[in-house]
């Protein structure tokens, strides 16, 4: 048994630092995972100023009426002809019409009871098609 006592103790007298990295990395991963990046994104639009009313030639307006069911009615300028489409079709319609009339303005009229998302769908389609002159109104009467 004397041989055993002769052996030097292998226990180090220092604080073990090898696992420190693991602890730090665990914390790091925890913060990486739990960090929530805020949702600062959406569809930007500039509202008209209060006194600002601009008279627009009827010819240059693409009337878009959104009904509560999500059905979209498109009417061009002075014509009385109404075309019934779905929100995603607006993109193609705008691209087609703006090619023949660069001064085109999208007049989006939404029925008061229409869910917000249908209006967003139409706005999305218009912005995807590159429209920048958009007027948002409430459908009256």
């Amino acid at each position, binding site marked *: 048994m004397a041989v055993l006592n002769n052996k030097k103790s292998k226990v180090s007298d220092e604080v073990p630092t090898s696992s420190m990295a693991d*602890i730090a990395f665990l914390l790091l991963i925890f913060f*990486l995972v739990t960090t929530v990046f805020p949702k600062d994104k*959406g569809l930007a*639009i*500039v509202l008209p100023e209060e006194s600002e009313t601009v008279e627009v030639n009827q010819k240059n307006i693409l009337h878009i009426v959104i009904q509560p069911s999500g059905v979209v009615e498109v009417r061009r300028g002075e014509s009385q002809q109404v075309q019934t489409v779905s929100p995603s079709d607006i993109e193609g319609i705008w691209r087609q019409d703006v090619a023949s009339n660069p001064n085109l303005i999208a007049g989006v009229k939404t029925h*008061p009871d229409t869910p*917000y*998302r249908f209006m967003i769908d139409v706005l999305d389609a218009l912005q995807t098609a590159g429209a920048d002159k958009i007027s948002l109104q409430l459908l009256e009467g």
Partner: protein
Amino acid sequence: MAIKQGGFSRKSKTSDEIPSSSLADIAFLLLIFFMVTTVFRTDSERDIIWPQAEATEKIDEKKKNILNIWVERNGSIFMNDQPYTMEQVSEVVGPLYAQSDRRLVISVRGDREVPYMTMDQLQKELVSAGVVRVVFATELEQRMTRQRR
């Protein structure tokens, strides 16, 4: 002062392992970096279902110049965790807009099922407060999900 045996018998003190003692420092530095840069939101999220849009873009404005207006499904309005009525919106937003040097951007965070009536009223309130830069907050819509609908 001659070096005995030419100094060759000494064992090299260079370890053959990758030095791992500084690993903890690196990790802690990264950790501190993330802790410092993490910005906790001033207002907590309301329970809404986001509308989706393909043309979703990041708001090009500093965070402090963005005011969130939450519109819940039942039409109730929240700003900075406080409930407000529709008529109060312009009273609250107006001074904030002046404070921000007319740089304030309103992020309208409406539930997808909110009747448009409410949204129109909100827009009118904002216009009467003088705010013209508005963002309708949306989630980015992928083409795939769109086709499935």
